[in-house]
């Protein structure tokens, strides 16, 4: 893989998952991380942010591409659907609470805005998300979750391979 932007370990692409393994289908992100780690992707760092998305900023320096993996509750969409969204698309729907200040943490959207101000934002950012029923602590995941995980894993791998195959010029485009 030829890239001009890499972290200290030569990994230019970050896959960051969020979710709580103890809260029903909110386990989506961690399960995707587990499967990606099992398969091993050269040039890709997989980090499970668990329920601590505020740690995302720590992993951004040196990355040219970021795939965020999370579960979403999306009105009008059925649980089981998997979304693949360009974060920079003007059509990207806003997320609830994107721009509100928290007392105790930084949202993903705020961190990406902050990373942009600090020159740390990867050039390519995707959100791969599974639509789920509202999560509930202590409840098991649904029967459909493994299918969503499998689909998301293949989407992430395709995306990472696609980005890895870009020439350095294309990566900066």
């Amino acid at each position, binding site marked *: 893989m030829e890239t001009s932007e890499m972290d200290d370990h030569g990994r230019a692409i970050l896959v960051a998952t*969020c*979710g*709580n*393994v*103890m*809260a029903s*289908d*909110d386990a989506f992100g961690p399960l995707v991380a587990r499967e990606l780690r099992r398969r091993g992707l050269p040039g890709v760092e997989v980090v*499970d942010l*668990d*329920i*601590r998305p*505020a*740690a995302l*900023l*720590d992993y951004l320096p040196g990355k040219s591409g970021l795939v965020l993996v*999370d*579960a*979403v*509750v*999306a*009105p*009008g*969409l*059925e649980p*089981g*659907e*998997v*979304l*693949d*969204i*360009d974060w920079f*698309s003007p*059509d*990207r*729907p806003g*997320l*609830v*609470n994107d721009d*509100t*200040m*928290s*007392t*105790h*943490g*930084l949202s*993903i959207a*705020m961190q990406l*805005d*902050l990373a942009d*101000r*600090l020159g740390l934002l990867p050039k390519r950012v995707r959100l791969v*998300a599974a*639509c789920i029923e*509202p*999560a509930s*602590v*202590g409840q098991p995941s649904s029967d459909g979750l493994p*299918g969503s995980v499998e*689909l998301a894993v293949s989407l992430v791998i395709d995306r990472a391979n696609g980005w890895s195959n870009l020439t350095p010029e294309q990566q900066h485009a």
Partner: protein
Amino acid sequence: MNDSNSKKNSGSTRTIRVGALARVEGEGALHLVMNGDQVEKVHLEIYEPPRFYEAFLRGRDFKEVPDITARICGICPVAYQMGSCHALEKAMGVFDDVTPEIRELRDLLYCGEWIESHVLHMFMLHLPDFLGYESAISMAEDHGETVKQALRIKKLGNTLMDVVAGRSIHPVNVCVGGFYKAPDPKAMAGLLPEIEACLDLMCELTLFLAEHITYPELVRDYEFVCLNPEEGYPMNLGGLISNKGLNVSQEEYGKAIEEQHVEHSTALQSIIKGRGEYLVGPLARLNLKSENLHPRALQILPKVCTLLGSQLPWRNNFMSLPARGLEVIHALARSADIIRNYTLPAVSRVPITPRAGRGAHGTEAPRGVCWHEYETDHEGGITFARIIPPTSQNQVTIESDLRDLAKLLVDVTDEEAAMRCEHLIRNYDPCISCSVHFLKFTRDWEGGRAGAVSQAGVSDGD
């Protein structure tokens, strides 16, 4: 390249709208009722989903508890792990067997969490309030270098947790009795240069906070409560003391405080029996145990006090910002000391034979005492669990602070009042269902101004 795609397992694609990430955190609301310039009611309303953790733990094996409680909070998992480990070691009768080496490693892990949590709160959430920015994003435009320095220190906190506990996000190496595996001395030693560099940076940043920030005046006669270790600054060990006469063991603490249900909040509120509200957290620790700070922090303390124009005890909780700065210096310097003295310990955990027992213990989470109590059956199964997090202990005090502040806000717009109330609440770095996307603000006027009810950030003017 797809822009907004939705796929079911069939592979179909269409445009979608995303509503919300699933992990919709708790939500807070502040409701003020004013009558002229008098405050009739202050309700910090917490709509967090009821915490199932205490019930959820019943029937689980004691060994599972640290991993489960770590997921109560995404910011301070170590606090929940340390509270549960110490309490369960008492229940299992091995508390006094835990070796000094294990205790040092626990302090190091906790230092990592203090550094990460404090720096995140200070520079990403709290400092923008003081400097007049709406967020760290707008602050970064003018103070980019400060934000980058803060991120560097925050990252070091995470790295410390990674090295000691396998992961910074929900550490996996912590167990009742110690650690599954002792960390590698080489990896530990490799952190020293960055710790030293960050220590210098943090001293500079703390002096900046003391010199260049104007702290709103809100002096109150708090009852400060923190751990009282025989040696060192409050963190993992010791009974509990206050500046108003509380002096109890860990076990007695659970009886000394009372948790109350209130109608306007699903969170329990704590008071000291027979006395009332109290305050836990960095200001309490600093005021009660400043002499036990690491010498590196003690060295800078007089200069900080001079620049602030205020000697300890600080009774203004807006000054929790420089208090956190001093605690980060302490945590960095203490980490360096622990690492310099570290060699691979003979045992990483003490052996435990399950038994029926009861144990209670609180430790100092970044935002204050986090107290746990457990009972186990003869096989080590949990039969009772009680967890008192710091924010529920501070909640009554937050409301009292707000009551005093509200009197000063009679002549300002609702938008300004909401902003200043949020600023005050952030002094506490409150953990309301982990991460509250704050804050719905309403201010009603009885017989005074009419119709002045608004959402935060949407002023209806005067």
